[in-house]
C-alpha cells in the first residue's frame, strides 16, 4: 500500500491515508486510501452501512478514525476538533438553527470567526445571492419550504469560504422534481465557488449526474473509484455493476483470453467480454456484466448469422418504462436475460421467441461479489 506516500502531491487537497474505524469488533470502515483533488466534486456512493457516512464524519472531525491520518494540503488534521478544520458541512435534514433568522443562520460561521459588521454583511449577502435567498433573509427556518431550507444550509456552509464542502445526503428529504433541480444547481454552484465538494449519497442518479469522480463503497470498503461514465461502462465488481443501474450477469467458463478480451462459454451460447484486469485465466469460472440497454432483440427470421454474443429466448415479462420497455427473456437453461429496447417497435407477447444479441465489447468481466 504505497499509495499513502505517493499521493501526497500538492494537487491533492485532501488525502485519507489508511484511515479505518472500528466500534469494538465491528469494522465500520476498513483501511481506506483516498486522494481528493482540489476543486473536485467527488461523491461517496453506497447503501446504508457501507461506510460512506463514517468517511464523511471522519473528514468533518466528528468521528475519530481508529487508525490512519487525514491530510489537508499535506497538513495532518486527524486530531483537530471540527471547529478548527474550516470545512463546511451540510447535514442531512439541514440542521438549521430554528431560533435564528435566515440572515443570522448564515451569519453564524462568521460570528464564530469574529467577523462582524459591514465585512460580514457583504459576505452574507453574497452567499444569500448565490443560494437565491436574497428575499428571504429575515424569515425563520420554519417559515421556509424544504428546498429553501436546503438553500439556507448551503449558503451557511459556503459563506466563510471553507476549504472543503461536505454534503451528507442533502437531498434525501426533497421530492423528485426538487432533487433534479438541485442536482443541476449544486453543479453550477460548485463551478461558481470552485470549492472541493465531497458529497455522500445512496442515490445513483445524483452520483452519476453531479460527480467528477464517484467512490463506490460497500460493507465498509471502497470497491471502485472512477468518473461516472467509466464506473458505469467498466464496473469492477458485480456489486458496482448492480448498484449503478441494472446489469445482467453472465456466469460461465473462460474459453480464451487475449488482448484484454475474453471468450466466455455459457449454457448453450458464448460471449466476448472486455477484461478490465480481473486476471481471468482460460478454463476458470468468470462472470461478465452486460447492461440491458446494450442487448438488441430481433425475431428469429430477421436475425442472421451465428457466433458469440447471441442467444435465443422467450419473452417472460415486459415492463413499460415510457420511452423504452424492459423485456425479461427466458433462456434455454431457465435464466433470465434483461433487455431494454425502444418501446413499440417489436410485438412482445409473452412466450414469443426472440434472438438477443450484443456487440463484441458490450460485456465486461467483473469480480464476483454479493449483489445488493
Amino acid at each position, binding site marked *: 500500500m504505497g499509495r499513502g506516500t505517493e499521493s501526497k502531491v500538492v494537487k491533492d487537497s485532501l488525502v485519507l491515508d489508511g484511515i479505518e474505524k472500528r466500534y469494538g469488533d465491528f469494522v465500520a470502515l476498513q483501511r481506506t486510501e483516498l486522494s481528493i483533488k482540489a476543486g473536485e466534486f467527488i461523491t461517496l456512493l453506497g447503501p446504508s452501512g457501507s461506510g460512506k457516512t463514517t468517511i464523511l464524519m471522519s473528514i*468533518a*472531525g*466528528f468521528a475519530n478514525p481508529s487508525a490512519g491520518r487525514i491530510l489537508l494540503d499535506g497538513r495532518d488534521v486527524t486530531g483537530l*476538533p*471540527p*471547529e478548527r478544520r*474550516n*470545512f*463546511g*458541512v451540510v*447535514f*442531512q*435534514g439541514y*440542521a438549521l*438553527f*430554528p*431560533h435564528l433568522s435566515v440572515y443570522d443562520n448564515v451569519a*453564524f*460561521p462568521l*460570528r*464564530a*470567526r469574529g467577523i462582524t459588521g459591514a465585512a460580514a454583511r457583504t459576505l452574507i449577502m453574497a452567499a444569500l445571492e448565490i443560494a437565491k435567498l436574497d428575499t428571504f433573509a429575515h424569515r425563520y427556518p420554519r417559515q421556509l419550504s424544504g428546498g429553501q431550507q436546503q438553500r439556507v444550509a448551503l449558503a*451557511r*456552509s459556503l459563506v*466563510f469560504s471553507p476549504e472543503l464542502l461536505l454534503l451528507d445526503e442533502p437531498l434525501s428529504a426533497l421530492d423528485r422534481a426538487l432533487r433534479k433541480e438541485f442536482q443541476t444547481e449544486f453543479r453550477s454552484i460548485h463551478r461558481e465557488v470552485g470549492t472541493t465538494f465531497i458529497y455522500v449519497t445512496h442515490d445513483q442518479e445524483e452520483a452519476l449526474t453531479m460527480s467528477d469522480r464517484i467512490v463506490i463503497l460497500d460493507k465498509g470498503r471502497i470497491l471502485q473509484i472512477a468518473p461516472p461514465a467509466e464506473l458505469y461502462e467498466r464496473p469492477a465488481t458485480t456489486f458496482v455493476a448492480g448498484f449503478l443501474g441494472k446489469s445482467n450477469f453472465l456466469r460461465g467458463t473462460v474459453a480464451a483470453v487475449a488482448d484484454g478480451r475474453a471468450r466466455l462459454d455459457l449454457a448453450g451460447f458464448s460471449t466476448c467480454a472486455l477484461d478490465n484486469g480481473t486476471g481471468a485465466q482460460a478454463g476458470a469460472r468468470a462472470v461478465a456484466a452486460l447492461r440491458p440497454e446494450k442487448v438488441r432483440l430481433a425475431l428469429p427470421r430477421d436475425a442472421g448469422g451465428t457466433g458469440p454474443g447471441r442467444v435465443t429466448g422467450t419473452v417472460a415479462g415486459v415492463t413499460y418504462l415510457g420511452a423504452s420497455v424492459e423485456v425479461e427473456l427466458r433462456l434455454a437453461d431457465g435464466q433470465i436475460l434483461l433487455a431494454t429496447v425502444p418501446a413499440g417497435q417489436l410485438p412482445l407477447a409473452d412466450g414469443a421467441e426472440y434472438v438477443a444479441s450484443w456487440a463484441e465489447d458490450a460485456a465486461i468481466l467483473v469480480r464476483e461479489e454479493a449483489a445488493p
Partner: protein
Amino acid sequence: MSAVAPSQSASQGERLYWLMMLLPCAFLALLYVVPVLNVLVMSVTVPKPGLANYAELANNGAVQRTLWTTLRIGAITTGLVLLIGYAVAYALVHSGPRERQILLGIVVASFWISALIRAFAWIALLQSRGIVNSALMATGLIDSPLSLVRNELGVVIGMVHYMLPYAILPLYTNLRGIDDRLVPAARALGATPSQAFRWVFLPLSLPGLIGAGVIVMIFSLGFYITPAILGGGRIIMVAEFISVQISETLRWGLAAMLATVLLGAVLMLVTWLSRFMDVEQALRK
C-alpha cells in the same frame, strides 16, 4: 344504517362527555371556587367593610417583611433550582440509556416522600450536631458547627430539594426535543463547544427554563411546611404568616388579604410571562 346514525351517536357521545365533565366541575365549583371567592370577599369585609386590610400592606412592618422574605426566598430558590435542574436535565439528555433510566428513577422517586418527612430529614442532617456538621468537624475543616438550619439557608436548602424534580422533568422534556444535530452543526461551522452551547443549545432551552421557572416560582411563593420547619420560627413566609393569622391571632381579614395578594401575584406572574411565551405549552411540557 344510514348517514344519520353516526351523527346521532356523535351527539350522544358529546352528551356523555358533558355529563362526565359536570361532576368534577361541580365538585371544583363547590369546594374550590366558592371558598376562594369567599376569601376575596372576606379581604374587604372582615372585620368591617373597606380597604383597611390592604392598607396594612403600606403600614404593617411585619406584613412587609414577610412578603419581602417570601419574594426573596422564592427568587433564590427558583434561581438555584433552575441552575441545578438544568445541569441534571442536561446530564439526563446526554447520558446513555441505562444511566438515564437510573437517574430518572432517582428524580421520580423523590416525589414519593412527603414534604414533612423531608423537612425533618433535613433537620437531622443539617442541625449543629447533625451528620453534615459532625463530618465536617471530624475532618477538621471547621472548628464550630455551621448554622445550616433554622435560618434562611435551611429554608432554601429544603425548598430547592423539594422543587428540583418539578424543574428537572419539564427541562428534560424540553432539552430532549432539541435537534441533536444542531450542536454538531454549530461546531462544524466554527463554533467552539462553549459557543455552540451559548449560541445554540441555551437559547433553544429558554422555553423549558421559563416554563420550569414559572412552576417553581409559583410553588415557592406558597410554600408552608418546609419554611415553617426549617425556618425554625425565625423565617416567616406568607403561607405560615397567614396560618398564624387564621389560627392564633384570628385576624381573618388580614389573612384573606394576604391570600388575595399571593393569588394576585401568581396571576400577574403568569400573565406577564404569557406576553413572552406560550405559558400553557410550557406548563404542558
